[in-house]
């Protein structure tokens, strides 16, 4: 059920120079949202900026009627959102797109992400216990970042019951290396049923390759420049190969995605980078 809702900012918090968290009162969206879905929101009144911004849901709580967004300030729209004052109303469409598809039988899941890829994974970590058969699946959250300051949401993942590992490129915190390197190590010693990833494209491409090599099902959440968010404009397409081997076809991130089977969107052989 997609709605167009006036949502009201009720709190804001700066997490680092780049990242911040917003909580909105948004009862209709909060009630319908599933992990992996996104909202398509205006950043201000009027027509500037002209288009909406797709933002992944970091959390949605039907009981309090609130949604939480974790946003990276990377451009004009996300800098305007950072300046919103508490009490401001903005217009949001949602929830949009499809959800992560954890298998009820999965016993161990890895959630691997970095940067603005963290929110949909956090929402998944929160709901996974109710989406897998009892006892709840073991969840390992792998958080990648360039530097320690950008290692996001460790405590929040732990609060969801996840085991948390961090990797930094410069070794300033946790594992010294990329999250993909850390994943390779983990898969050598752990039996893992499913991997979920969202983050920069090279990270997800690496995750797709490593999981394919271990024959572990992997889902990736993608983004692409988007206009309508409703499937009409056909802007936000990505190349998809059915079963990883079929002919390339364009599918919409907003409608067929944003969650795709990783091996269908990242060729695991060849040099398509």
């Amino acid at each position, binding site marked *: *059920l*997609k*709605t*167009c809702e006036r949502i009201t900012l009720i709190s804001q918090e700066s997490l680092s120079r780049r990242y911040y968290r917003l909580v909105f009162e948004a009862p209709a969206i909060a009630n319908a949202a599933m992990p992996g879905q996104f909202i398509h929101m*205006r950043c201000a009144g009027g*027509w*500037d*900026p*002209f*288009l*909406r911004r797709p933002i992944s849901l970091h959390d949605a709580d039907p009981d309090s009627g609130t949604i939480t967004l974790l946003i990276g300030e990377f451009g004009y729209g996300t800098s305007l959102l950072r300046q919103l004052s508490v009490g401001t109303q903005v*217009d949001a*469409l949602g929830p949009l797109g499809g959800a992560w598809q954890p298998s009820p039988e999965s016993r161990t899941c890895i959630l691997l992400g970095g940067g603005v890829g963290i929110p949909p994974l956090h929402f998944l970590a929160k709901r996974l216990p109710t989406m897998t058969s009892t006892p709840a699946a073991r969840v390992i959250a792998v958080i990648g970042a360039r530097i320690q300051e950008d290692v996001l949401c460790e405590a929040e993942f732990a609060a969801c019951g996840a085991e948390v590992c961090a990797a930094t490129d410069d070794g300033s915190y946790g594992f010294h290396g990329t999250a993909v390197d850390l994943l390779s190590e983990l898969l050598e010693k752990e039996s893992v049923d499913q991997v979920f990833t969202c983050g920069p494209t090279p990270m997800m491409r690496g995750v797709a390759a490593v999981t394919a090599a271990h024959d572990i099902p992997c889902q990736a959440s993608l983004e*692409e*420049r*988007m*206009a*309508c968010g*409703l*499937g*009409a*404009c*056909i*802007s*936000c*397409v*990505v*190349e998809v190969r059915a079963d990883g081997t079929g002919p*390339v*076809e*364009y599918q919409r991130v907003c409608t067929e995605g944003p969650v795709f089977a990783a091996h269908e969107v990242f060729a695991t052989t060849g040099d398509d980078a």
Partner: protein
Amino acid sequence: MTNQSVNLAGIEMKNPVMTASGTFGYGPEYADFVDLNRLGAIVVKGITLEPRAGNPPPRTVETPAGMLNAIGLQNPGAAAFIEQKMPYLRQFDVPVIVNINARSLDEFAEITRIFDGVDGVHGLEVNISCPNVKEGGILFSSDPEAAHAAVQTVRRHTALPLIVKLSPNVTDICLLARRVIEAGADALSLINTLVGMVIDVDRRCPVLANRTGGLSGPAVRPIAVRMVWDVAEAMDVQIVGMGGIMTAQDALEFLLAGSTAVAVGTANFVNPPAAIEVIDGIAAYLEEHEIDDVRSLIAAAHPPKT
């Protein structure tokens, strides 16, 4: 009782507001936000004879008061459209206008034959102006004789109302307009998008994979209004005015400039209920100004001809 209905090229519309091709999908995409029965007409996303994969991404980029798009006519092809999309559209009491595109006269003939007589298709919008495909759009849009030939071919294969969508990327739009009317067009859609480019200064290359794209949104509105005005001044033809209509006020500009109907396009991306807001806003304007027939606004901004 105020009359809001118009007759466009033989198509009875409840009100003069339709959706612009390529901005409203095939209808169901907006059904959560728009009561399709309230629309004057639906113009569906452009259809070609065979399926088209479309252009590689990125396909759109935001611009000041607008956006560029280079979708490249991704569509399932005529047969799949009729089989998969038309049954949904037939449920509604709203005229369906199919936007058709082709690379050659033979393709125009064939796709017209396919749509002629399809239940629920009320008219064809002949797109000779898509700026984002190498073959077809650019050729037919810029050469008056090629445009004439395309429209004449379509006319020979159907009695359906024909609305021809013209490109603004020409020196003299009146010349194009005159030739397609002579070829049998019943009305004109003005305007398609303006070719533009945005360059990513960090990567030092155009943002769009297609390099160029079509500019739409409020940024183009004054150009579109002027072109509707020019064509309305130069000849007696029905016009569907479009280009950056966000509100009823914008739509009224197009009616006053000489449009019989208007199309809401890019606004659908920004504000899904935009078309309904435009319909309601025109009704409110008529009431406020005690105008009993929307048709009396058509070309009303032009000085009386002597």
